């Protein structure tokens, strides 16, 4: 197992290098380029040239690439145009909020999607199946930000069931340890903080969970249907194994493989979805920050965010591979 992880980590190096080249070309060399994003449209050519020079854009390609790589490796993503503070610092202070939100969304999606997909497959063609398939189609087709607004206006503002903005009510006092509000509350046993933070997470989490929930439900359903038709399931049933054993050890274990991959990929997408939900609920995470950055064309922040997402994707992919090898011994042997 350890050898598998080490080998996977070593394989990451060429991937990361390739990714850095791709991102470099994408971000620095795209028509328009940084100087267009930084300057107003009517800037004189001399000013443009001066900026290109100060950004080092007139140097040879390879020199530019290595200085870009060097800066990233030192954690230097530049400074935000609007706040003037380093981009990495801005991200790190907002990361716990978004991470908490993403975890909430993924927990909702998995906790509801897996059983729903499984039951829909078990009773194929039934009312639950119809509702699950229809609901997930609807979930995929609804713009996330619209759903977020609906939840906010309906459940928070009209019915008053949930708070409509921020991470915590102003009246609640909190001891700061990690920046993760729920975790902090649990550690200091301030149960009111835990409850309040969870209430604030509920609606943005639900909105963010809509697409993963839909995808997980559909994938689980399709996957369980496929596995239930396999010969080994028939054999297991025929040799008189207990129903529960067949369902857990044979059907679910095999059906979960593609779902795990999907969950991994979806987790990466969550940070992009957070841009759409956090801004609706004024949730002070990376998403709201990016929302403001797109409105102000804050170029360093946007590029930094892409780098962050790319790095996260690589880490998540590694985790998916590891969980794969836990579920399926054949992967380990490769």
């Amino acid at each position, binding site marked *: 197992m350890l050898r598998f992880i080490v080998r996977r980590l070593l394989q990451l190096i060429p991937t990361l290098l390739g990714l850095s080249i791709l991102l470099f070309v994408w971000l620095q060399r795209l028509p*328009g380029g940084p100087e267009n994003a930084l300057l107003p449209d009517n800037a004189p050519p001399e000013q443009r040239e001066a900026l290109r020079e100060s950004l080092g854009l007139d140097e040879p390609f390879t020199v530019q690439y290595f200085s870009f790589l060097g800066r990233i490796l030192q954690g230097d993503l530049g400074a935000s145009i609007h706040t003037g503070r380093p981009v990495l610092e801005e991200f790190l202070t907002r990361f716990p909020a978004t991470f908490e939100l993403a975890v909430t969304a993924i927990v909702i999606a998995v906790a509801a999607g897996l059983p729903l997909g499984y039951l829909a497959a078990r009773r194929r063609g039934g009312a639950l199946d119809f509702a699950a398939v229809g609901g997930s189609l609807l979930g995929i087709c609804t*713009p996330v930000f*619209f759903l977020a607004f609906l939840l906010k206006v309906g459940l928070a503002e009209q019915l008053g069931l949930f708070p409509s903005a921020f991470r915590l009510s102003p009246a609640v006092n909190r001891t700061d340890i990690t920046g993760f509000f729920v975790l902090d509350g649990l550690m200091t046993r301030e149960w009111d903080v835990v409850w309040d933070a969870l209430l604030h997470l509920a609606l943005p989490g639900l909105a963010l969970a809509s697409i993963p929930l839909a995808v997980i439900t559909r994938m689980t359903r399709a996957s369980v249907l496929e596995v239930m038709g396999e010969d080994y399931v028939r054999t297991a049933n025929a040799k008189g194994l207990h129903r529960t054993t067949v369902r857990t050890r044979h059907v679910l274990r095999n059906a979960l493989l593609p779902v795990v991959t999907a969950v991994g990929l979806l987790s990466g997408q969550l940070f992009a979805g957070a841009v*759409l939900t956090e801004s609706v609920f004024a949730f002070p995470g990376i998403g709201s920050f990016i929302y403001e950055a*797109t*409105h102000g064309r804050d170029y360093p922040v*946007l590029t930094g965010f892409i780098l962050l997402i790319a790095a996260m*994707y690589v880490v998540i*992919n590694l985790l998916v591979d590891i969980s794969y090898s836990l579920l399926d011994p054949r992967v380990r042997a490769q």
Partner: protein
Amino acid sequence: MPTTPSSPNQSGVPDRDEAAVAEDGRVPLHRRKAAKADRLAELMGTRVDEGQISGIWIDAFRRMRRNPMAITGAVIVVVFVVVALLSPLLAPYSPTSQAWGSEVFPNRNEFVGPRAENWLGLDHLGRDLYSRFVIGARQTLMVGVVATLVGFFFGALLGGAAGSCAVLGGRWGARVDNVLMRIIDMMLALPTLLLAVTVAALVGPSLTTVMLAVGIAQIPIFARLLRGAMLAQGNRDYVLAAQSLGVRKRKIALTHILPNSMGPVIVQSTLTLATAIIDAAALSYLGLGNPDASSPEWGTMLAEAQRFLSTAPALAVYPALGIIITALGFTLLGESLREALDPKLRK
């Protein structure tokens, strides 16, 4: 024994007929008619399979005709396209005319609902909502189609190059394929919406940007699909036959492998039309959408209307319903097409 798609269980057919005859007196007429129609379809299905050559597309079409999902999707898509194409005739007023501007006061929560002259009421600037909705359908369709075409064209170019290199290019071809696929995989790693956001943020907001951004974000998906399909075709007998007959490689790739690999790509195009419309709405919400008010688009309308969701929900509901139903239509159509083309998904 070759089983036709329409009769997965041929041995069961006579049983059902016998039952129908035995209980003739009690079985309602429409049941008997249905049984007859089923039998007829089965016989015809068998005949087609035995005699004529029926193409995969004709088969798929026949299967889709009986799938309620496909019919619903097709109806939605047809209505949407017709409305979009005929929108200049259907819209009674100019979508930008603020002729009723003196009747709407968003600050005082005074909005005008549906009435005889404005079927869906007025928006927050006193423009006719129905005209905007109908003209918006046109713009939305254009965004969806152009974005999909961009993704389709460049994706197919990349994927087709990688696929034909891998299948026909020998050892060097495999290397080229490897490099291309690594790039595509890395592009795939970034969420499509984020790719679109970077493009839009770099180039600046406009309708063209939205279409390009959404389309570019779809390139890796198309590339992967086409390459995968071409690889699957690569070791088929007909490719081997063409190769041994000395057909030029370019010709094999373009006229033999490519047409046979288009299935999944066409399915994806249908699904992408839905994604493109939703992504375009998200871009509008992020302020990267079309700033030109003269051509309303559902995404822009929805993004603008969010502010009034608690006071005048109708402003947001119409474009939102438009987006959701249209996306649903394309998704249903694409999914049922996929089902009809893929024997593994059929049961």
